[in-house]
C-alpha cells in the first residue's frame, strides 16, 4: 500500500509498523516508536524518509513490517491519516460490539 509512495511537502508520510512482542500499531518519531499516532513524525523529504525507513527496518528486534505511508498534516500540525485503512489502524476496530464492549469495560 505504501509502494511507490514518495513523500513531499504536499503529501507527507509517516512510518508505521506493529510492535513485535505485543502486536499493536506503532509509529516512528526520532528513530523511536510510539503507540500515539498523533506523535508520529511527518516526513516531507524523500531522502530523509528513506533513511528513517532503513533505520526502522533495522529495528527488527522491536517492530514487524515497517512501512512508509501517506498522511496529512492536520490543522494543529500533527499527522492525520490519508486513507481509511490507516484511520482504522489508529482507531481500532469500528464495529459496534467492540466499541460497546470497550465502553462497558471502561465503566466498571
Amino acid at each position, binding site marked *: 500500500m505504501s509502494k511507490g509512495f514518495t513523500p513531499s511537502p504536499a503529501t507527507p508520510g509517516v512510518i508505521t509498523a*506493529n510492535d*513485535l*512482542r*505485543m*502486536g*499493536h*500499531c506503532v509509529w516512528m518519531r526520532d528513530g523511536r516508536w510510539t503507540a500515539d499516532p498523533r506523535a508520529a513524525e511527518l516526513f516531507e523529504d524523500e531522502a530523509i524518509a528513506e533513511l528513517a525507513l532503513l533505520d526502522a527496518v533495522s529495528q*527488527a*528486534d522491536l517492530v*514487524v*513490517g515497517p512501512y512508509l505511508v501517506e498522511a496529512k498534516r492536520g490543522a494543529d500540525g500533527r499527522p492525520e491519516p*490519508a*486513507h*481509511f*485503512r490507516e484511520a*482504522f*489502524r489508529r482507531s*481500532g*476496530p*469500528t*464495529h*459496534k*460490539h*467492540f466499541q*460497546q*464492549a470497550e465502553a462497558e469495560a471502561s465503566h466498571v
Partner: protein
Amino acid sequence: MFDARPQHNDQHREYLRHRTQQFRQQVQRRLDGSLTEEEFRPLRLKNGVYLQLHSYMYRVAIPYGALTPDQLRMLGHVAERWDRGYGHFTTRTNIQFHWHKLVDIPDSMEALNSVGIHSIQTSGNTIRNVNADAFAGAADDELEDPRPWAELIRIWSTDHAEFQFLPRKFKISVSAGKQDRSAVSAYDIGLRIVERDGQRGFQVWVGGGLGRTPYLGQVIRDFLPQADLLPYLEAILSVYNLTGRRDNKWKARIKITVAERGLDVFRADVEAEFAQRRQQFSGLDQEILRDLRARFAPPEFRDAPVQGYEAARAANGAFRSWTDTNLHPHRIPGYASVIVTLKAPGATPGDMSAEQMRLVADLAERLAHGDIRVNHDQNLVLPHVRKADLPELYEALRAVGLATANFGKITDIISCPGMDYCTLATARSIPIAQDIAAHFRARGLEDEIGEMKIRISGCINACGHHHLGHIGILGLDRAGVENYQITLGGDGYETPTLGQRAGAGFPADQVVPAIDRLVDAYLELRESPDERFLDAYRRLGVAPFKAALYPADA
C-alpha cells in the same frame, strides 16, 4: 500417523507438548534476534499465528466443528486470560482470537493442548482443518455419521510428511446427509457419503474454491468404495503436489490445476496414482476407523414425554418462534438439534464472549449429552437435545442473548472480519452485516422474507463466501473509499451456483437501502410465501432485481 483425541492418548499428548515447546523456543529465538522475521513468519504461520492490523491473531482448529464442554470452557478461559474476552468463530469452523500478544501465545497454546485442541495446520500450504456437517450423528437424513471419516482424514493429514509444502492451502469437507450441508462444491476436495446398490461410498468432488477466481468443484469419482478413501485422497494430493503451479500464488490452488489441465487429464493421473497408492495401504486405516466408529458411538438417548414441550410452545410465542426457526430434525423422535445463532441483533457475526462459552458448555453438559458443534454459518449447534428440555434450554440461552430466532434468515449473515481486523482487507464487512441485520430486525421482516443467505467478504479472497450468498457483498477500495459490490443468486448447497455480479458497487451508506429495495422487489414478485428469494431469482432472472438495485437506470 498419530491417534486423535489427545485426552485419550498419551502419544498425541506428547506430540502436542513437543510441538508447543518447539514453538515456545521459536518465539524466544525471534525475540532474542537469532531468527529474523522472514525466518520466523512461516514458523508462526504453521502454528496459526497471524499478524493482523491491530494485533496478533491466533487461529485454533475445531476439527469438523466438534467441541466438548471442557474444550469450549477452555476457549472461554483463553479468551479471558490472553485475549479480550471473546473469540470469533469462522465459516471454516476455526476460532480466531484477535488480540493475542506474541509473548503469550505459547502459554495459550499449552492451555488449549491440555484439552486436546491445537492450531497445527491452521495456516500455510498444508491440509487445513477438515469440515463436516454440524448435524453429524443427529440429522434425520444422514446415511452415516461423517465424523469418524473426518477424524480419519485429520489423523492422516496432520503432519503428513509428503503434504507439508503443497503449492497452496488445501481444504476438505465431508457431507453425509441427503441434503449437502457442508458446501462440498466450494472445497478443494468435497466428499459426499452416498449409497449405490446397497453399497456405501463417497462421491468425490475436486477443484472447488472461492477467492479471486471462484470455481465450483466437479465430480472426479461418482462412487468410491469407502475403504479406498485415504489412498484416493492421497492420489489426488500427490498429483496436485506435483502438477499444481508454484510460479504464481494466485494460480496455485487445485481449482486452477484442474481447470487448466482439464478434469479428464487430471482424473487419469489420479487413477494411475491411486492404483499404486492403494497397494501401500495395509489396512491400518480401516482398523483405526473401527476404533473411531466406536469412539463416536451415539450417546444414550433417553425417552421423555414431549407434552411439556408442546404446552410451552402453545403458551409462549417467542419460544414457539425460536423452535420453528432454530431446530433441525433429529433421527430420534423426541429429540432435536438446536442452532444457537451467534447473530443477535447488533452482535458481530460469529463472536462469542467467554461468559457465553461457559454457559453453553454448562448447558451442553446438562441438557445436550455434552456435545457441541460449530457450523459453517458461524453459529453453534447442540446436536442432541430432548424436546422436553427445550423450554429450559431456551430460557437459559435467552438470559445471555443467545436465543435469537433467526437461523437461515436475513439477519443470520456470514461475515469475515474485514478491515476491522484483517490486513488483507480492502473494506470493512462487520459493520455492513450489523447494519443490515439491525435494519431488517427493525422492519420486523425476518420471518416474512424466509430463508435468505447474505454473505459478506472484506476483499476478493472471499473468506465470507460471498459468491455463495443468495445475496453476496464484496467490500472493495474504490479510489480511497469503501465500496460494496453485490452478487445475486449464489448457492453453496444443493444446486451449487456462483452469484452473478449485479452491477456497479455501492458506497457503504447505500448498501442497506440497496438490499432493502431488493427485498421489497422480491416480496412483490414472489408467487407465494413459500418461494424463497433464491427461487424467485432463478425463476425470473436478474433483470427485475437489477431494476430494483439501480432504479435510475431502469
